[in-house]
């Protein structure tokens, strides 16, 4: 996937492929540093924002306003004792965090940070590399990241991690389908799968406006894909202790932590690229001609990514965790069918426009047909389903009216047994009268700490 491995420049997207090696290495380093710094930032940001949402201040001890908190946490994690369970499969246990973290970093290689700029005397795009199938690279990396979670769950040799790993595998594969389908409409609109091509196709109108349905489905499914609340069933602490990483400690745990946050940043960056105009300046700023040239676009890009991360944190601070079956129903029975119908409509609009139909006619006709033939019957079927369910619930209520069960409670005249007589603790050297213990208790908090 590195640019070194791509022969010639014939198959590349124009602008890549004839760069000197040292410049590519500098770009690799910059992307790496960006991801690590963004992770440190995102952790503090999340804790501060969640704190404010819960009427707290959040971390405020380390560094100015607590900004260095995640650095301190990272140092602490790296120096902690590492405990490996006896039953762990050593090789796979070691491999899992690496498999989790490496694809997370790799995925960022195709994300465009900005337009072509001048860097050390070379004109080069602010993007590590691009392929004609750039978005699929991100997709492939996220599907490889599943291995890290599944393998860690299995290799720990413990029950809760195994359950967490299996759950998360099912969850991520299911939501990958919805996520992939929501990208299809973008590919149709842009006519390319390369990330730089998709950004340049949004110079007039961001994809989020015409493809609002795809954007919503993408935004929902990436929360499931990254195992974040309210879809964090893989590490549901109320059910599974810590899920797949229960048995991990020290630096290996830090790798999982890193991978989770980088994945969050990656899907935010991909959402920015696919739907929010990439590095292009938002509306009032875009009136200024210099906004989309030089190094300014990096700022707009990072701003959009941070805004998307804020939504992630907002969700976590607001919504309770879903039940597993409800979560799977949402993915398979709601998101995917809606997506398929939507793609059908978008494709029809696309084909009709290509045939030279006027824009409004080519838009209204397919949407009308889809509404009439698919959405309306589906809604009617859903109405029927709801009515049947309500009827069943009413039947249950009738059943309850006949014999109202009560929770078994103790009788009202229950005699509570008297407490056993307290025996005096026997201490060597102090017999009779008040003991040393009693005296400590009598004098309150003098011996505390």
């Amino acid at each position, binding site marked *: 996937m*590195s640019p070194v*491995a791509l022969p010639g420049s014939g198959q590349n997207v124009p602008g890549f492929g004839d760069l000197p090696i040292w410049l590519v290495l500098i770009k690799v380093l910059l992307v790496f540093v960006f991801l690590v710094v963004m992770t440190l930032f995102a952790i503090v940001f999340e804790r501060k924002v969640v704190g404010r949402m819960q009427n707290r201040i959040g971390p405020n001890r380390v560094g100015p306003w607590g900004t260095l908190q995640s650095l301190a946490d990272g140092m602490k994690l790296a120096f902690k004792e590492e405990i490996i369970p006896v039953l762990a499969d050593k090789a*796979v246990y070691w*491999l899992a965090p690496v498999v989790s973290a490496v694809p997370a970093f790799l995925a960022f290689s195709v994300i465009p940070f900005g337009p072509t700029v001048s860097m050390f005397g070379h004109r080069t795009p602010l993007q590590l590399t691009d392929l*004609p199938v750039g978005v*699929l690279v991100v997709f492939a990396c996220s*599907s490889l990241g599943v291995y890290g979670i*599944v393998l860690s769950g299995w290799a720990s040799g413990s029950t809760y991690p195994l359950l967490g790993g299996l759950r998360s595998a099912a969850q991520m594969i299911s939501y*990958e389908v919805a996520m992939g389908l929501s990208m299809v409409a973008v590919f149709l609109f842009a006519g390319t799968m390369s990330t730089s091509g998709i950004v340049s196709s949004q110079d007039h109108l961001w994809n989020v406006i015409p493809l609002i349905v795809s954007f919503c489905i993408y935004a929902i499914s990436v929360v499931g894909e990254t195992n974040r609340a309210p879809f964090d069933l893989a590490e549901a602490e109320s059910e599974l202790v810590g899920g797949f990483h229960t048995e991990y400690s020290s630096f290996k745990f830090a790798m999982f932590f890193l991978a989770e946050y980088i994945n969050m940043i990656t899907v935010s960056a991909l959402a920015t690229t696919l739907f929010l105009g990439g590095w292009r300046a938002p509306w009032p700023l875009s009136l200024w001609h210099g906004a989309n040239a030089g190094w300014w676009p990096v700022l707009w890009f990072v701003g959009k990514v941070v805004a998307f991360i804020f939504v992630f944190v907002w969700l976590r601070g607001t919504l309770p965790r879903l039940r597993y079956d409800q979560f799977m129903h949402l993915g398979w029975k709601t998101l995917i069918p809606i997506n398929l119908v939507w793609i059908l409509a978008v494709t029809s609009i696309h084909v009709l426009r290509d045939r030279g139909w006027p824009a409004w006619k080519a838009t209204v006709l397919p949407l009308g047909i889809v509404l009439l033939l698919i959405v309306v019957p589906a809604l009617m079927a859903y109405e029927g389903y709801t009515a049947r369910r309500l009827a069943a619930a009413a039947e249950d209520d009738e059943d309850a009216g006949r014999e109202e069960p009560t929770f078994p409670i103790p009788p009202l005249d229950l005699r509570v047994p008297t407490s056993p007589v307290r025996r005096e603790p026997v201490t060597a050297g102090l017999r009779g009268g008040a003991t040393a213990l009693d005296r400590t208790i009598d004098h309150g908090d003098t011996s505390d700490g």
Partner: protein
Amino acid sequence: MHEVLLAAGPLRHGTVPLGEAIAFWVLGPIALAGAIGMVLLRNAVHSALSLVATMGCLGAFYLIQQGPFLGLVQIIVYTGAIMILFLFVLMIVGRDASDSLVETLRGQRWAAALLGVGFALLVAIGIGRAVSPVTPTDLNSPNAGGNNVHSIAALLFTRYLFAFELTSALLIVAAVGAMVLAHVEREGPRPSQKRLARERIRSGRPQPLPGPGVLSQHNAIGTPALLPDGSVARESVMVGSMESQEERQALPTPSAGEGGFE
């Protein structure tokens, strides 16, 4: 051997770009080691992981041989989805499950030998054709300007449309078949949460059954829990599918020395 060296000629004489040569010599051994490991490793999960490594390397090979779409689809579909499902099944089977030495299918050795020989023949023919002097196709013109996907789509939906549709029909039949086989008809409507809660309260025992071995000296699954007064809680032991009260009553009472308060 001579033919193999001939085929490797472009690699040795530098007509292959440096990056491609490096990628080939790094990934080739990994792919081979993965394939050998898949056959030789005892643990089923390790074996599956070796196969994952091989498939990932194959994807990278497609990438460096001017097939970016094919390479990434290989990684997404085979490495990402299908092998994960394999792993899923292997993990549910259990980490210590060993191979059964009893053959349940009659004549499977003969069938396996026949298929193996047939597959070896196919591979031999394929390699034979690869090392014979063939002119490699230049993909630069169909891939020019990032048109890789467009070229594949054009071929897939014109020249190979019939094969494509046939394959998709096969996949749909397989998916529907799996669904039909795994489908279980529900007897009567699904009880609502409200009804389940009421039935539980009516049963006179809303709390869960005590776990085995609670307050006892052992925590083995067959050791009954003890109530606070030291008597045996019979509901705490479930032997096989024995659920009814009568069957639990028939349990042997543990001897007096076992359990109880100290």
